């Protein structure tokens, strides 16, 4: 789901990170879909060099993926052109870098975090470049960095970069109509999504290669053998030539250099697991949360996509073993673990080996409901909250009077509240007229989650954009105050400084929390 405000927010992120020119190119790609270089030059009205440089930056930071495909217009000439596709998700992930770093420092260690930080700052790096950077921070031996690197790869937090320009066959016309269902707006998104998926699939290295360091070591040896005098400088140049194949201008002469980047998919998977665990903790208890965390941790590698409906299955013994590894889990008995699994909705008696798998989709769904319901409660009050929950649980059309009876709300107030919810797009309404025995109008109401979630998500992007704009505005307003050296900040000036500090923390932490909710609706 890429919504209008989603694009605006993404453009805002790109603007604040890379400036206006890059943002202009990115905006065109986000709004119009994949474009060729010529098209981009035409639409942005920038010079070819400016566009090229912007693309280089975007590719370097994994925000754009190039691919070649036969253009439908040029099919006669059989020309194959390079097109550029903006990766909306990756742009938004830029907001989550602090979360990714935090996760690595918790799961691995500080050194790994530092290594990853470099990678996030630069988008893509070779192994040597990462080591070089690590050395400049810490006088430690290179072996430490190598070890950290290996840890990151084993945990799948970093991966080899995808192919710079995969060839993608145009989806055949028979394929698309099958997916064209539902609302018109959804149609457009759906079709483009599939293209994005095609491109990403085509570009991704083979699973075996993606996290393998072996190939890289060979390449490294090659480099060291031939040019051991200045491998870093050279690697940097090669990095450019490898990724930035634009119209063959920089002919790629050296393919063996492997570039690494952060594996966003793994980070999002971890964040999803974390959200599920926290959700269970709030809904059930600590025990259930510990068990779910252990189960998800042990089966993480078995997940092949982020939006898994159910966790992978694990035997009771393995779950117990994993539970024992955490400090909080050590006090749990086998019976307690089994009881927690029942709490988590696992059928209690299974086959002989007692395999358990937890429904994650439902867990996420409940969290989404909570989020939407809390908005309804704040905006429309307690009665509306009850009605919305009733309709959301029922999942089918209910008549006004019935709703009034079930929620214990005054009959004449009910239509008013429902109407307000409908006006705000939280409900779907259907009018039914009965003419026998006399004309009667009935209003039926329902929650349409697909449409509602898209709307809520768009509003969240809007709110996120507002939060960051307000942060920028506040900072801009207080520029002069903040420019005053610390020692001279006295009296009212000090107060102002205190206020701005508070405002900043408030706004930024709200944005981070809101981002969790955005991920809940978009990524999980």
């Amino acid at each position, binding site marked *: 789901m890429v919504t209008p405000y989603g694009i*605006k927010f993404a453009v805002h992120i790109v603007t604040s990170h890379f400036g206006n020119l890059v943002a202009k190119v990115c905006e065109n790609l986000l709004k119009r879909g994949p474009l060729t270089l010529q098209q981009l030059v035409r639409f942005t009205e920038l010079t070819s060099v400016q566009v090229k440089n912007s693309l280089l930056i975007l590719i370097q930071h994994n925000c754009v993926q190039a691919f070649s495909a036969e253009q439908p217009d040029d099919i006669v000439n059989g020309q194959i052109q390079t097109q550029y596709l903006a990766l909306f998700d990756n742009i938004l992930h830029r907001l989550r870098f602090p979360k990714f770093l935090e996760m690595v420092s918790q799961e691995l260690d500080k050194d790994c975090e530092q290594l990853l930080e470099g990678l996030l700052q630069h988008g893509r790096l070779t192994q040597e470049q990462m080591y070089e950077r690590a050395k400049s921070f810490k006088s430690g031996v290179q072996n430490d960095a190598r070890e950290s690197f290996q840890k990151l790869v084993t945990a799948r937090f970093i991966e080899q970069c995808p192919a710079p320009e995969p060839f993608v066959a145009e989806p055949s016309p028979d394929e698309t109509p099958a997916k064209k269902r539902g609302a018109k707006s959804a149609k457009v998104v759906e079709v483009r999504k599939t293209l994005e998926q095609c491109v990403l699939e085509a570009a991704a290295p083979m699973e075996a290669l993606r996290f393998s360091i072996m190939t890289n070591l060979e390449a490294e040896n090659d480099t060291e053998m031939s040019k051991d005098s200045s491998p870093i400088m050279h690697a940097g140049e090669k990095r450019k030539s490898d990724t930035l194949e634009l119209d063959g201008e920089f002919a790629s002469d050296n393919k063996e250099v492997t570039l690494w980047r952060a594996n966003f998919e793994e980070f999002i998977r971890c964040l999803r697991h974390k959200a599920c665990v926290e959700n269970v903790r*709030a*809904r059930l208890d600590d025990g259930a949360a510990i068990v779910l965390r252990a189960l998800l941790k042990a089966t993480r590698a078995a997940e092949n996509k982020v939006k898994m409906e159910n966790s992978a299955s694990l035997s009771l013994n393995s779950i117990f073993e994993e539970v024992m590894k955490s400090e909080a889990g050590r006090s749990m008995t086998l019976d307690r673990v089994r*009881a927690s699994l*029942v709490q988590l909705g696992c059928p209690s008696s299974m086959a002989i080996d007692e395999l358990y798998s937890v429904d994650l989709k439902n867990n996420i769904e409940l969290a989404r409901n*909570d*989020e*939407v*319901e*809390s*908005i309804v*409660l*704040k*905006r429309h009050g*307690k009665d509306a*909250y*009850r009605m919305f*929950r*009733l309709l959301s649980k029922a999942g089918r059309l209910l008549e006004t009077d019935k709703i009034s*009876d*079930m*929620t*214990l*709300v*005054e*009959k004449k107030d009910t239509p008013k509240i429902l109407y307000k919810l409908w006006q705000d797009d939280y409900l779907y309404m259907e009018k039914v007229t009965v003419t026998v*025995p006399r004309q009667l109008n009935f209003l039926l109401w329902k929650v349409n989650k697909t449409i509602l979630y898209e709307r*809520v998500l768009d*509003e*969240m992007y*809007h*709110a996120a*954009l*507002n*939060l960051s*704009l*307000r942060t920028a*505005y*506040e900072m801009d307003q207080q520029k002069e105050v903040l420019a005053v050296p610390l020692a001279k900040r006295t009296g009212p000036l000090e107060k102002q400084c*205190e*206020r701005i500090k*508070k*405002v900043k923390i*408030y*706004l930024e932490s*709200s944005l981070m*929390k*809101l981002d*969790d*909710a955005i991920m809940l609706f978009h990524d999980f």
Partner: protein
Amino acid sequence: MSRLQGPLALKRKRPDSNSPSESLTEQERILYDVIRSKQDMGIWTRDMKRETNLPDNVVNKSLKSLQAKKLIKEVVNIQNKGRKHYMAAEFEPSKEISGGAWYVEGSLDTEFIDLLKDQCAKIIYKQRVATVEGILDVIRRTGIFKVEFSTQQIEEILRALVLDNVVMDVKSNGMGEFDSIPVGKVCYICTNKGVRGEPKAGAMASIPCGVCPRINLCTPDGIISPTTCVYYNKWLDF
């Protein structure tokens, strides 16, 4: 169902089935039979006139005399409070007319409902796990309420509490806290929010934009914008 019983059903009624009605005039009898045929649904005066084909003044006169004889009564119709509804005296207004047990004089007794809801929630909180029967039993024993409740009424209150997200309905698995309750029986437990606590506000609901009624009109450079927003000013006023 009774709504559909028209003149046809009426014909099958034996006119001598009720003794006080013997002293009625012809018109009064016709009118009374129509009203009585509607049972606990009652009938609107205009519908009466249409069904009996009697002139207005006759209907009005007959209604008065029937009321005086205590054969019919006027009732409030929750659907349409402005319309005069009559019903034979032996019937109690149906749920459709009165609005159900929670309505008094045609309006919802919210105070009473809130009180009862509060009590139910407290009972569940104390007992940790409670069934409808258990709750009803406690209410009866403590005698907080002078009126008698039916199981259905308590169920309705509990359903509202579930929708309020104060309690949760779960099926007993017969283990642990549920050991005194048969397996599969629906019972109620408190949600983690406790008895009175508001549900935790979500990320969106805790910032101004989440509750902003004007978010659709808000644009970065518009008249309503995040930099000029009054809600933000209030929110960030430290």
